[in-house]
Structures are given as structure tokens and as C-alpha cells.
């Protein structure tokens, strides 16, 4: 059975509070007693009970991570990094899948209101809704948004400039001489997907190429949707000469459809995808893709949140990170 504060107190013959002060380095303990207590703690490998410490300070050392869905492969690295930073700082992370359902989101935010977690990172989604705004307005400051916007108030936010990523991808194809670039996206109600459409348009505009609505396919982001999109898009009046896909599962379906049609990538249709995910990395040929600094975004979100929890004067900021383009075989014309 592990040693408790009480055990050490009995061994040394002092009060529990004295042992607690000695171990946490607080004043009010003579040097001699402190040394004696610390020696016993070391000898018996004493570890303070985080939960008990938290109860005393009304802290739980638990962070909630609200996710819009578990199918988002893009987020797994980010989640790992959030957990890594949290663990280092003595926090555990609980995953809360909201499935983009506002009522579920509200119930998870209640964990914060009821002080059952010390802070929350809210990942993705559309606009910060009433529950998030109200949680913050009620004085629960320990909230960090990732890739989610808020119209009314400032909540510390980490954003990845996916418009810029999409701009880079489109520009890459334009630089290679392609002008009829098909864009296959997810739900444009999602902020990130709508930003990708914006980036695509910005690049076309920069190259004085008129935006053609027929070349844009908004889908549910599934593998099947990627497959179907190819079949639909090659049938339009001015068919595409290249593809930019904003989600990895869409890439799988698209590449399958292209190959099934007997076409070659990149010779017939160069393809650019979005996200440096496992799925994108195993597609053949190797895909040119937009790489987002997700690891860094995760680390940053956790660091910002932990700072908010522990520092009353933590600065509330919006930080924007830029993606890069990784060029590979799917756009390499020999």
C-alpha cells in the first residue's frame, strides 16, 4: 500500500499539514524537519495524490477535449500532442465526442461549469454557438478553440489557415499549367471546408481564371463521395484537367475512380490532396498534399489552456498557423 501524508506525519511526529508544506516547498517548516520528511518521502517513493491535491484546490487536473467527430483522421496527431503536453504538466485528458450535436456539446461544457474539469479545448465545427459563448461569459475562462470561430467575443483560439493551404495547392496546379481544376470538398457549413473553397478561389483569381461552379463538388467527405465525384465531374461540359481534394477519404475514392477508368495519375489527371494523414500517405502514387502543422497546433492549444488555468494574467490571443505543400508523384509530370 502506498505511503500517505498521514503515515509520514506519524513517522516524523508532526501534523499532516507540516508534511504537506514540506513536500510542496512552502514555508512554515523548520529546515531540519523538512529534510527528515523529504528523506522519508524519497526512501519510500512517496507520490502526492494529485486528486487529493486537486480537491483541496478545487482542481481536477483533468482537461476536456471536445471533438466534432471521431472519424476525423486529421485530428489524431493533434490529439496525441495535446495529451503529451497535458501529461507533462500533470493533467489527464478526456475525449468528448460531440458528433457536431449542440446539446451534446452543451452537456460536455457543463463539466467545465460544474468544475469537474479544469479547462476545455474545443476542436473544429462551425461558429462558436451560444453554449460556448455563455460558458465564457459566465466567467469560465479556461476555454481554447481550435479551428473554430466566434462572432461575439474573444476566446483564445488556434487556427490553421486552411485557406492558405488550399491556395498553395491550387496555385501548384496552376503553375503546372492546369486551368480546369476540380475541387472536391466536404461540407461547406464547416468553417475549414469553406475556407478551403476560399483559398481555391483566391488562387484562381490571382491567375485570372474564372471560377467555374461546375468544377466544385461539395460532398459528405466519404470514400464513396470521392469516387462518385470523379464520375460526375468528368461528365460536365468543360471537364477538369486536374483535381484538388480537401479530405483524405475523398482522395481514396477519387484515386480509385481515376484508376478504374483506366486513367493515369499524374499523366491524365494530377491530384493534390489535403492533410498529411496515414490514409493519404498509403495511396499510390504518393500524393502531393497540403501539410498542416497539426502537431504544433495541438501542443499550442494545450499550452495555452494550461497557461489560462494557472495564470490569471494569461494573454487571450488568436494564433494563426500556416500549412505547407509537400509535392510528390501525383503531380510530377515526367
Amino acid at each position, binding site marked *: 500500500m502506498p505511503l500517505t501524508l498521514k503515515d509520514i506525519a506519524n513517522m516524523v511526529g508532526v501534523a499532516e499539514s507540516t508534511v504537506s508544506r514540506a513536500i510542496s516547498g512552502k514555508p512554515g517548516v523548520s529546515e531540519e524537519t523538512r529534510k527528515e520528511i523529504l528523506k522519508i518521502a524519497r526512501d519510500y517513493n512517496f507520490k502526492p495524490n494529485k486528486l487529493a491535491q486537486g480537491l483541496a484546490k478545487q482542481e481536477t487536473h483533468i482537461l476536456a477535449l471536445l471533438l466534432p467527430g471521431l472519424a476525423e483522421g486529421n485530428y489524431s496527431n493533434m490529439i496525441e500532442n495535446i495529451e503529451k503536453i497535458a501529461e507533462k504538466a500533470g493533467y489527464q485528458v478526456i475525449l468528448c465526442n460531440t458528433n457536431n450535436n449542440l446539446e451534446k456539446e452543451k452537456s460536455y461544457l457543463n463539466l467545465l461549469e460544474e468544475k469537474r474539469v479544469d479547462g476545455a479545448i474545443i476542436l473544429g465545427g*462551425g461558429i462558436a454557438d451560444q453554449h460556448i459563448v*455563455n460558458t465564457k461569459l459566465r466567467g469560465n475562462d479556461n476555454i481554447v478553440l481550435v479551428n473554430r470561430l*466566434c462572432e*461575439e*467575443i474573444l*476566446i483564445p483560439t488556434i487556427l490553421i489557415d486552411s485557406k*492558405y493551404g488550399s491556395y498553395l495547392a491550387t496555385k501548384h496546379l496552376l503553375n503546372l499549367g492546369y486551368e480546369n481544376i476540380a475541387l472536391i470538398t466536404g461540407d461547406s457549413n464547416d468553417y475549414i471546408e469553406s475556407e478551403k473553397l*476560399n483559398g481555391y478561389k483566391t488562387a484562381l483569381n490571382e491567375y485570372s481564371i474564372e471560377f467555374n461552379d461546375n468544377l466544385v463538388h461539395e460532398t459528405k467527405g466519404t470514400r464513396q463521395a470521392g469516387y462518385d465525384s470523379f464520375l460526375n465531374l468528368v461528365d460536365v461540359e468543360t471537364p477538369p484537367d486536374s483535381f484538388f481534394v480537401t479530405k483524405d477519404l475523398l482522395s481514396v475514392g477519387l484515386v480509385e475512380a481515376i484508376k478504374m477508368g483506366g486513367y493515369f495519375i499524374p499523366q491524365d489527371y494530377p491530384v493534390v490532396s489535403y492533410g498529411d494523414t496515414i490514409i493519404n500517405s498509403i495511396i499510390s502514387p504518393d500524393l502531393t498534399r497540403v501539410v498542416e502543422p497539426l502537431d504544433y497546433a495541438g501542443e499550442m492549444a494545450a499550452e495555452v489552456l494550461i497557461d489560462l488555468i494557472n495564470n490569471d494574467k494569461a494573454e487571450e490571443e*488568436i494564433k494563426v498557423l500556416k500549412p505547407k505543400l509537400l509535392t510528390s508523384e501525383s503531380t510530377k509530370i515526367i
Partner: protein
Amino acid sequence: MASVTFENVTKRFGDVVAAKDQNLEVQDKEFLVLVGPSGCGKSTDLRMIAGLEEITEGKIKIGDKVVNDVPPKDRDIAMVFQNYALYPHMNVYDNMAFGLKLRKFPKEEIERRVNDAAEILSIEPLLDRKPKQLSGGQRQRVALGRAIVREPKVFLMDEPLSNLDAKLRVQMRTELSKLHDRLQTTVVYVTHDQTEAMTMGDRIVVLKDGYIQQVDSPLELYNHPVNMFVAGFIGSPAMNFMDAKIEKDGDDYYAEGFGAFRIKVPDKFKEELKGYEEKRVVFGIRPEDLTDARITHDLDITEDNSFEAEVEVVEPMGSEIYLYLAIDEHEMIARVDAESDAEVGDKIKLGVYPQKMHIFDNETEEAIF
């Protein structure tokens, strides 16, 4: 455009009452200011209109529709706070437009709304700029623009200017008032700053501990506060309050300050004082309604409208002087003309403009007049 109505609205957070049986009608196109000290429940009122807080009892209507169960997004309101988020990588246009984009408004409609809002706010030349290229006032306008593009029936503003420096705050006050004239929309505005309330509101609601104290135009609040709280809260420096009792001498009534002063009550207030004879009351007089008798030209100083007090501090403000005075245990401030040469330690005679005096019930703190 719409009115907002509170019918017996109560809000409780556990045992804490944030709004108690409130009745209020914000008229269509009115600029209504909710003012009160911290914790008075003004922000809660705003959030209840927005639908961010559910109400415990009563009804809230926007226009003719009871909105108790209508979610915020369907209430046709837009909120503006002091602490808004401008996204550094988006230009002004996108910072104003993203909400509409995400709500799937057609592109042409978004363009029209953003351009209209930019024109109203005079920020058309800034639409391509990024937030860091803007001044504090321009940023504030972009935040307002984000609310304007929603074309709400009611704007709800919670201390939107409190982050700005003093000079900009004064400038933005005027701009917001002009904006209200142009938009012709109902505005409910929360502030703790009574000067902001007085300068901006068509009407002002003074709140304390969740209770509505008074709803009136700025001048009515100033001239006819209904109780000591409103009297003390509105006006700067605050109204002087001094313990007194009512004396009747023949047909005349006097406010007698236990030897410190004896001011005759104007005839028009006599009726209100019936029944208060020999009773304790609180005598209230605003600093600007006291005058240095030596330089008073518009009042015949007599025994009935003056008293002596000792000058403790002299604070010259340029156009006027604040005198901090003491008389027995009473302390008071007088805002006198800059001509006054009163010095610390002087015992000077102060004139009281009798029509401006206020008498409050000692127990209830309600105004007798």
C-alpha cells in the same frame, strides 16, 4: 425593427436573484441603456434577451412574439461586447462576412450587407486591410460591422467601449449614437458608467441587486430620482446626502440639519411633506446646486437658503472648482464657479438653490420630492 418587453421576469442562479420581477418595455428603435453597479444584473438582462440565459419566471417578447423558448440564433438579435475577436489572417471584409458565409447566405447578399455596413461605419476604404493595419477605433467599427451585417431587429451591446482609452471612448459614444440614428434599430446597451448612460440613452434603466429602480429619460433621472440609490448613482460628483429633520414653522417647512443648516422648503413641495413634521429625513443636494455665496448673482442669499461650512480641499477644474467641505459631521462637495477664491481652512457661506433640493424618507430611502 422591434420592441422588447419584459413581463414579470425573474432570473435566479441557485439562491442568487439576478433579476427580480422586472417589467420593462424597450420601444421600437429606442436606444435604451441598462446601468448599475457591478452585480446589479444588467448583463444578465441582456443575456436573457439574447437567449443565452433562460429565464426562471415571466415572459420576454421581441416584437409581439414571446421568445422564452426561442434559441438565440432565431431571435434576430446581434450582440456586441468589449472583447471581440478580429481574426488576424482575414481582411476586414472577411472578418465581417464569415458568419454570413457559414450560415450559407448567397454571395450577392453577403456582398450587399458587408458593403452597406462598411458605408454606414465609414470603413469602405479599409475592407481589404488586415486587423493589424487598423486603429483601435477602426477595429471597434469592424466588430460593430459584424453585428450590423446580421441586420438584426435588436442590437444588444455589453460595455462595448470599456476597452478603449478615454478619448476614443468619448468619440465612439458619439459615433454609436449617430449609428443608431442611421440604423433606426432598437438598441439595448449595458454599461456601469453613468456618464455613458446619460449621454447615449433615450431612456435609462437603473438597476440594483436585480431590481429595476427607475426607468426614465436622462434628464428625468437626474432631476427627479425616485430614491437615494438613483440620486447617488446618477450625476458626478454624486449628490450630497445629509441627515435632517422636517420642521414646521407657521405655514413653512424647513429641512433642519441638526444645527448645521436650516433650509426653507419651497412652497410647491409643502404638500409632499405633510405627515413628516419632526420626522427624520435625508436632505439631498447636488454639488452643482450649491454655490459660494460671495460670488452668487442669481440667488438672494438669506438665512433660509444658506449655511456655513469649512473648506477642506480645493480642486480647481478649470471652468469650475470642486470644494470639499465639512459641517459638523456632514461632508459634502460643491461645484462652484471658477471665480471663487475659497481656500482650505476658510469658513464660507454656501447658498442652496431651494428648487433643486431633494428630500428622501429616512427609512425607505424613497424620494419624497
